């Protein structure tokens, strides 16, 4: 879905060596460097540094690429290089190669300092200038804020004060931020104000790593490249849609972040609503970022909340017990969680979309931790055939047709439909037809972060949500979380199940049941 035929390259002159029809030619990022804040964090160590290494290994980063770590540790460049080496040798997807690492290593720098240390930012300015001079990074620098949002004001302020945020003659400065983009509408706006004070809106790249996943991009291919799905992709044929994002693990070491935030803000606001938007949006005029966002924004703006929030939302919290052969602690006894926490670890809700296409088709969203298995999927469940020319006993086993887009793991698409059971009797039963990307697909397909970091360096924005989308999502979620805070405590559920009873009651009320993913 890379829409632009020729990538922006820091100058408008087209490169005669890049023929748009030459689809083999790899899109290599232009000369640039990345400054990473929070480089010792889990995300940087397990995902970001390996992604940068893997991009180098695949030959997609420029030879001059520079990577500057910023942190409190008293590290030399060599110490930092050792740290990066350890991180990539443990977590890289494409395998560790000394020669590739050597190429990367030439551009590794470390700056010691805290976020309030103006001198450290002056040092950072020097280091970045040195990279421009010695490596030829061309004044193009990305700032990756892999840090808690409450540190954004300080870091952005420092970047603005030191002038690092300001590009000069044809170069660019970009900032990358990770979710959460706030914890409600007001805080999201506040956060955005802070960031946009230092960077232009088009230079802010919000990473939602879900959007970098191949299957998510495949939703659009499935819907808009085919003739056989779109005609039935509406309320005439679709009964309802279920979007599930389940994890079988608990909150792990994320207590500090998770408590007080909860599942709805953690994943529904971003991942699930993005999946909903991609599933429900109208066909964009082109796949350019602006056209794509326009459609996503339209559909998010059309989302309506249920009238009775108590009946059509559900909220849960896992208790302790045996899950799949392992004894697990209840949420309230996890490290760092207060014993009286009312943070939810499971959230479900019904949303409606007030458009001609979707009127009367509920979208059921659910997400949670310590559920039956790790799975993310979108199930489009169809209405029953209006008339069945069989005896009712013949079709007793026939369910509703469904198209299931499996986002992870085991990426692919499943279709469920009725088929005659072989034999003399007419008996129709549900069967599944599977499309998988191939059994080792995950090994071969690039990690979402590789895709997103490369797109960011290329300045290719379709996969990054814009502030408007973030705000629209909070507008959907805020009334629900407010209602919950006042009226609805999380219901307990056993680990390894599909959430509290209230979640099942919520669908039973509409005469439906959750799919078992």
């Amino acid at each position, binding site marked *: 879905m890379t829409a632009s035929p020729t990538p922006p390259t820091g100058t408008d002159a087209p490169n005669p060596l890049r023929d748009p029809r030459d689809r*083999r030619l790899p899109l290599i990022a232009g000369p640039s460097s990345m400054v990473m804040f929070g480089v010792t964090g889990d995300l940087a160590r397990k995902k970001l540094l390996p992604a940068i290494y893997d991009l180098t290994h695949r*030959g997609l980063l420029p030879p001059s690429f520079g990577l500057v770590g910023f942190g409190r540790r008293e590290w030399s460049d060599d110490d930092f290089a050792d740290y990066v080496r350890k991180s990539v040798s443990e977590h890289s997807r494409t395998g560790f190669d000394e020669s590739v690492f050597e190429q990367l290593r030439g551009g590794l720098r470390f700056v010691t300092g805290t976020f309030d240390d103006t001198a450290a930012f002056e040092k950072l300015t020097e280091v970045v200038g040195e990279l421009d001079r010695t490596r030829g990074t061309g004044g193009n620098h990305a700032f990756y804020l892999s840090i808690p949002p409450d540190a954004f004001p300080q870091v952005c302020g420092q970047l603005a004060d030191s002038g690092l945020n300001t590009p000069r003659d044809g170069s660019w400065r970009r900032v990358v931020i990770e979710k959460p983009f706030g914890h409600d509408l007001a805080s999201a706006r506040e956060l955005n104000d802070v960031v946009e004070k230092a960077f232009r809106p088009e230079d802010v790249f919000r990473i939602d790593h879900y959007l970098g996943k191949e299957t998510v991009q495949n939703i659009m291919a499935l819907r808009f490249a085919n003739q056989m799905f779109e005609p039935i992709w509406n309320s005439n044929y679709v009964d309802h849609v279920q979007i599930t994002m389940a994890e079988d693990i608990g909150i792990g070491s994320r207590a500090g972040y998770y408590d007080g935030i909860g599942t709805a803000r953690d994943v529904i606001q971003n991942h699930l609503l993005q999946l909903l938007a991609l599933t429900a949006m109208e066909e964009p005029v082109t796949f350019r970022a602006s056209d794509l966002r326009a459609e996503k924004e339209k559909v998010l703006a059309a989302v309506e909340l249920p009238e009775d929030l108590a009946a059509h939302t559900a909220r849960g919290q896992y208790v302790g017990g045996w899950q799949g052969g392992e004894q697990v602690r209840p949420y309230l006894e996890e490290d760092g969680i207060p014993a009286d926490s009312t943070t939810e670890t499971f959230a479900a809700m019904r949303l409606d979309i007030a458009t001609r296409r979707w009127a009367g088709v509920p979208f059921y969203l659910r997400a949670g931790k310590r559920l039956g298995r790790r799975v993310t999927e979108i199930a489009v469940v169809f209405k029953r055939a209006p008339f069945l020319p069989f005896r009712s006993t013949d079709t007793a086993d026939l369910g509703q047709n469904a198209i299931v887009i499996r986002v992870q793991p085991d990426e692919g698409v499943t279709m469920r439909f009725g088929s005659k059971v072989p034999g003399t009797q007419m008996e129709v039963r549900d069967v599944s037809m599977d499309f998988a990307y191939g059994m080792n697909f995950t090994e071969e397909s690039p990690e979402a972060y590789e895709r997103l970091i490369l797109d960011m360096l290329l300045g290719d924005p379709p996969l990054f949500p814009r502030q408007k989308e973030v705000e629209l999502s909070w507008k959907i979620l805020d009334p629900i979380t407010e209602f919950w805070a006042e009226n609805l405590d999380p219901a307990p559920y056993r680990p390894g199940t599909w959430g509290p009873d209230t979640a099942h009651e919520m669908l039973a009320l509409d005469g439906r049941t959750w799919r078992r993913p």
Partner: protein
Amino acid sequence: MITTLTDTTASAINKQMIEMRETFGANTIGRVLTLIIVATGDVEEPLEAAIAASHEHPARVIVVDAEPDAERSGLDAEIRVGRDAGAGEIVILRARGDVQWSLDTLVMALLLPDAPIVTWWPENAPSSPVHDVLGSMSQRRITDSAGCQDPLGTLKRLRRGYASGDSDFAWARLTRWRGLVASAYEVPPISTPLKVEVVGTVDNPSVVLMAGWLEHALGIDAEVLPPHSGDVDYAGVHSVRLVREDGTIDLTRVDDASIVMKLPGDDTGQHVTMPRRTLAELITEELRRLDPDEVYGEVLAGTYSSIDDTATFAGGKPDPVDQVLPDADGVAAAAAEHTAQQLAAALEERPIAHLVLTGGTVGTKTAAALPAALESAGVDVSRLHLWWGDERFVGPDSEERNEVAVRESLLAPLQAGTKIPARNIHVMPSPADGMSLDDAAAWYGQQLDQMGGDQPFRTRGRAFFDVVLLGVGPDGHIASLFPEHPDQRQVAASAIGVTDSPKPPSERISLTWPVLNSSRHVALLVAGEEKAGAVLDGHRDINPWQVPASAVRGLQSTTWFLDTAAAGQLPG
């Protein structure tokens, strides 16, 4: 899971595969394409690459391994699924003997319904992939000129036979190089180079294509330079240099795994890891896109100009000589004796010899004189292969067929006592074989390709046939290449279907200019006064369009066998 089937059929293989799927459930993954690998001998290396590629492109892989010389004709197969086949499923077909004459029907039952077909020749690229029986049913045809005996010669042939959908590994080997050159070009300040140099082994097809690409994209000549004598010897591209006003962009390979990139104003250079690409990476890249690689097509076309002048195939060879005899019988006897001697000499140097027969009155007489001539020259006819330069596309027993005319006089005596194996007699198909004219021509072309391997059909320095016999028409035509007839312009295929021929019957199959010109000796057989004008014209400059008879020459000799009447207009 490996299952071996001996003396089997395509439909039995298909049945076995369905059975394996039902029993082991091993093949429940969607396959996106059928990959046909045409291998000879060692199939394991390409197969390993295909298995690795199957993780990204789940495919059914059909390996066709033909063994034309096998004593007994038959088909053996090996089916691999599950762990032994990566994410794909593999069928290895070993076609023994005559089975290889219909390779298309061999794979037909095993193709995935509707899914695209990609054919890959890891070595022995056909002279024109799109005219190959397997290539013609494929969306994409992948060759590896570097895996052939004469890489540049092969690339030139591929240029001649290029069709949209072809590509060559020599191009895919350049992808990372090209990516790096393109991004080095983008480093500001951008300016157009004044000079472009590509350093590398001059006979390496990737080097040639790199230069071709830069010329094509930048519109300035790229100079190909051999590496310095002191340089380490790497196959392929050593360096690319874009010389600009403000300095030089220089990318140079320093070892097997890396290159150093220098930009204007930066003399230290940056180290870039760029290991040589493995076969698996190459085939994976090729399978990523199944639409034609137009840029490759343009670069190839720009690198080797097309041969618009079909005279080229005949040029640069010894001038023809005349042998004038009293009458047609004399011509036939002399030509037969000459042919027998050349074949005898050929068999002393090589295990087999190839003779191309012709029709017409003198051609038929010559054929009749051949058995005796061959015997007296001591030719071991069991090592002889017989071909036809053209054939009328009519019923198999029609009197109009060149082959029918020599059945009694030539073929029967040679076969008596089974001296010449039936499979060495390469008869052109007739409508009774169930093929359209063009399919029949393509089929015959493939027979030639299979016999010649990578060798056909050089017209310079080497040759495929030993002797080509050609009659000449009063209009100066040879084989079924007629004066000013558009079909004679086709040079991509080895054999072509000719329609609307000025002489009935109108539909014929003919060999083409490059194939007829790939012979050590050419003998033109002419008798009769009505042909004297054509003989005279044929002696003038090479002019294939108006006088086809002037445009076929043998590498070592071209001889006009004439009777006095036909030689009547020649200057004393």
